[in-house]
């Protein structure tokens, strides 16, 4: 399994390296790879249906519970077959579809990577590993939706789906970590084994909700459903692959995967079906009045996803069986319908139902494919869809809890779905042609091969469903249900309540579609009424919220990052002063070990001179006076150093101060006079801030007097200065011997500064 994934990822990168002549056929080549994978998976069917999953385990970071764990059992096999099988047909289709676009290398690269990530996802049995693949598909879907990135709507849609699914992804990760902490493992087996413990834990509900957040965003459940119709900006192969058959099913997959570990509780059987029912209803309801071909399909996909989530949530044997079956049914008809929609858009240049019509004559084969697929969607015999619908009805009738309600909504949603299917058949293919299209027929083989195969499968399995049931659905069911189950699938169930319901659905649906097709104005009215009843448009709310969020961030940033240098300094100083005062307050109550005295008087006098010079520097308006007064301060300090036994400091201070004053004087003539830039109030404010800081520093200095430096170091220097370094002046010895490397660093700084000064002063004035 791991080898397969590695092959996938290597080949995906390899696309870029192909020679040009082969590159032209890359779609077909990738389809062949997928077909090979499909065959490989199919060859495992017999082995796995005997309840023998294939397991691959490797240590990664066992200390953290992170291991590489792959599992191929009934459930992952069912999904893997879908991913590789639909993948093959989609890549065949994409080969023709993408021919007219540039940068197809990139497209195929992303799509190929995606199918690899998807396979990795369905085969992962370590939850963290699964999460990594999960996010990988999210990122790739962003690139695929935004393939036409020169269109703003496409970028927006891609961004929207990215934000929503990432948001859910974070929830999923948090949920995995929460539940993982209960059983102290991220391995699926441990979760299932510790199922009872998890369900009793207080972390169960928050963990479940967070995981469901991930599931619902990925699988476009209400209230996150709106990203899916928006994502129809993607090229048709992407819609067919990601947004019908694979990625949006990842949430459903996870739900089924975790059902043995987390399912069956009161919370599960309430929350999951609830969102499923709502999603199912909205999907089918909004599909009816749309006019964009792909958006109609997107809404029907939402409907299907709702049904799947609902069925897994009901959690009876029958409902699981219906879910697995419906998974296949939907993948078959929806992927082909998306491909047909892409084909129609490509040939006619529009997806608008009002501009299409009578395409039966121009594209007879496509019509045949679409007809079969739509029949399956409507749930009519002899397609597999009929079987599914019957089973779903049965499951809903028998569902515990608020079953009758679910069941009524189910019928309503199916009536809508029937009407949608009929509306598509009549509006797009029958009726009067609105335009004439001349198409060469040979070129379209590739276009119809993919969807044709899928629809054919749907038909074959519809007539003889037992192969599908025995080899694929039973093993998958057994995994979800955690015990061996047998599902008997029949096309004909005999005369019973369910069949009666089906007939009623068809009758009501036919009536509804008849009205819609014949009377355009009703449809128009309906759309208007919808706008009034449902005034909230989710995508708009989303972008509005996002815009507000960004706007708030911008305004906050503007307050913080205003660009005024002195306010930055003001902020820094104020915070430092506040922290200092706080610390001084916490450590109050210390005593002073030294007496307050002005002795000796000449030092006190010196301090007075320094203070006056400092004040003069601050207050004077003359630059020369300011600099000289500043010099006085520096020289005064050197005298203090000298008096208190720091000869070297005094010398250095004098030299440095002299150099600084000279440098100031040198450039002074080139500089402007001090401008009066600040208002009086500003000056007072600055003075207050400076005083707060200065007084804190005075207290710090007084406190510091009582603190001893680490004497052993100094003692070592004192003791060894003469004997080992042969120097009498300890300060000098420290600088040039004990800490010579530090001094080397200091010299380096000076050299760099000197170089910088030299470059700055010698560079020519830029031309203005």
């Amino acid at each position, binding site marked *: 399994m791991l080898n397969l994934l590695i092959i996938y990822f290597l080949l995906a990168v390899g696309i870029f390296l192909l020679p040009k002549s082969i590159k032209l056929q890359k779609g077909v080549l990738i389809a062949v790879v997928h077909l090979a994978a499909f065959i490989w998976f199919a060859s495992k069917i017999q082995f796995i249906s005997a309840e023998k999953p294939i397991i691959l385990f490797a240590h990664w970071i066992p200390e953290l519970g992170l291991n590489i764990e792959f599992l191929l059992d009934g459930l992952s096999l069912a999904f893997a077959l879908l991913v590789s099988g639909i993948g093959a047909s989609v890549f065949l289709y994409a080969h023709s579809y993408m021919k007219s676009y540039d940068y197809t290398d990139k497209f195929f690269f992303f799509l190929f990577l995606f199918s690899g990530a998807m396979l990795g996802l369905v085969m992962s049995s370590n939850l963290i590993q699964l999460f990594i693949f999960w996010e990988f598909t999210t990122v790739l879907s962003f690139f695929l939706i935004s393939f036409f990135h020169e269109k703003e709507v496409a970028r927006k849609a891609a961004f929207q789906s990215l934000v929503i699914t990432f948001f859910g992804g974070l929830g999923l990760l948090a949920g995995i970590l929460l539940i993982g902490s209960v059983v102290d493992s991220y391995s699926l087996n441990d979760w299932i084994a510790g199922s009872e413990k998890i369900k009793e834990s207080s972390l169960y509900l928050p963990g479940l909700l967070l995981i469901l957040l991930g599931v619902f965003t990925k699988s476009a459940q209400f209230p996150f459903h709106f990203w899916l119709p928006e994502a129809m900006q993607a090229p048709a192969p992407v819609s067919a692959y990601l947004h019908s058959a694979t990625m949006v099913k990842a949430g459903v997959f996870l739900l089924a995967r975790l059902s043995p570990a987390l399912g069956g509780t009161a919370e599960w059987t309430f929350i999951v079906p609830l969102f499923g029912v709502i999603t199912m209803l909205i999907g089918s309801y909004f599909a009816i009045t749309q006019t964009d071909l792909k958006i109609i399909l997107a809404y029907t996909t939402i409907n299907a996803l709702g049904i799947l989530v609902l069925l897994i949530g009901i959690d009876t044997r029958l409902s699981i069986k219906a879910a697995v079956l419906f998974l296949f049914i939907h993948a078959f008809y929806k992927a082909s319908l998306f491909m047909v929609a892409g084909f129609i858009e490509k040939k006619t240049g529009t997806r608008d139902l009002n501009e299409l019509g009578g395409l039966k004559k121009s594209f007879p084969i496509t019509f045949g494919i679409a007809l079969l697929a739509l029949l399956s969607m409507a749930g009519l015999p002899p397609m597999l869809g009929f079987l599914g619908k019957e089973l779903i009805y049965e499951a809903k009738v028998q569902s515990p809890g608020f079953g009758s309600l679910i069941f009524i909504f189910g019928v309503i949603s199916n009536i809508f779905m029937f009407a949608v299917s009929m509306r598509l058949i009549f509006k797009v293919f029958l009726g009067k042609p609105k335009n004439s299209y001349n198409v060469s027929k040979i070129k379209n083989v590739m276009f119809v091969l993919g969807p044709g195969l899928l629809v054919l499968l749907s038909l074959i399995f519809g007539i003889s469903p037992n192969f599908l049931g025995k080899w694929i659905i039973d093993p998958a069911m057994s995994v979800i249900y955690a015990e061996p189950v047998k599902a008997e699938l029949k096309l004909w169930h005999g005369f019973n309540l369910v069949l009666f319901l089906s007939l009623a659905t068809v009758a009501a649906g036919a009536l509804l579609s008849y009205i819609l097709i014949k009377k355009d104005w009703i449809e128009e009215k309906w759309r208007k009424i919808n706008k009034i009843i449902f005034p909230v448009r989710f995508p708009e709310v989303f972008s509005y919220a996002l815009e507000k969020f960004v706007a708030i961030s911008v305004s906050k940033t503007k307050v913080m990052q205003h660009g005024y240098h002195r306010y930055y*300094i003001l902020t820094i100083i104020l915070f430092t002063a506040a922290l200092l005062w706080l610390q001084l307050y916490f450590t109050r109550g210390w005593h002073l070990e030294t007496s307050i005295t002005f002795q000796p008087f000449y030092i006190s006098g010196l301090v007075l001179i320094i203070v006056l010079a400092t004040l003069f520097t601050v207050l004077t308006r003359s630059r020369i006076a300011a*600099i000289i007064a500043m010099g006085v301060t520096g020289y005064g300090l050197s005298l203090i150093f000298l008096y208190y036994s720091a000869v070297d400091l005094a010398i250095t201070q004098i030299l440095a101060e002299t150099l600084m004053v000279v440098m100031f004087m040198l450039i002074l003539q080139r500089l402007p006079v001090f401008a009066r830039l600040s208002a009086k109030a500003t000056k007072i404010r600055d003075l207050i801030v*400076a005083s707060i800081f200065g007084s804190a520093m005075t207290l710090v*200095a007084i406190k510091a007097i009582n603190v001893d430096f680490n004497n052993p170091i100094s003692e070592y220097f004192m003791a060894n200065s003469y004997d080992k370094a042969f120097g009498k002046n300890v300060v000098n010895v420290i600088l040039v011997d004990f800490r010579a490397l530090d001094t080397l660093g200091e010299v380096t700084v000076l050299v760099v500064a000197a170089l910088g000064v030299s470059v700055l002063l010698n560079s020519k004035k830029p031309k203005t």
Partner: protein
Amino acid sequence: MEVVLAILVGILYTAGVYMLLRRSILKFIIGIIFMGNATNLLVFLSAGLIHGSPAFVDGTTTNSAQLADPLPQALVLTAIVIGLGMVVFILALKYKFFEVTGTDDLDQLKQTDSQK
């Protein structure tokens, strides 16, 4: 005397911060120098003041505890030199800056590109 010098440290810091908050770049540089001086004095002061006994030793010294602590002195000496290097560099930068922009006002420094 320590307390008097501590107050001097506070005054130097006050002057330094006040000058840092001015818009004139020249004053800003003077502020940096004051801050540097104040910090040097603070470190020097914290080692304790000893009059007339610099850390000079020969082989016979026994009263090393009564000599001035050489370590803070070495630190401050390094700080003075580095401070000098920094101030000189900033001055040169300031000179260039004024030559190019013709302003001494820090508030004019908001844009990275010249506005023309």
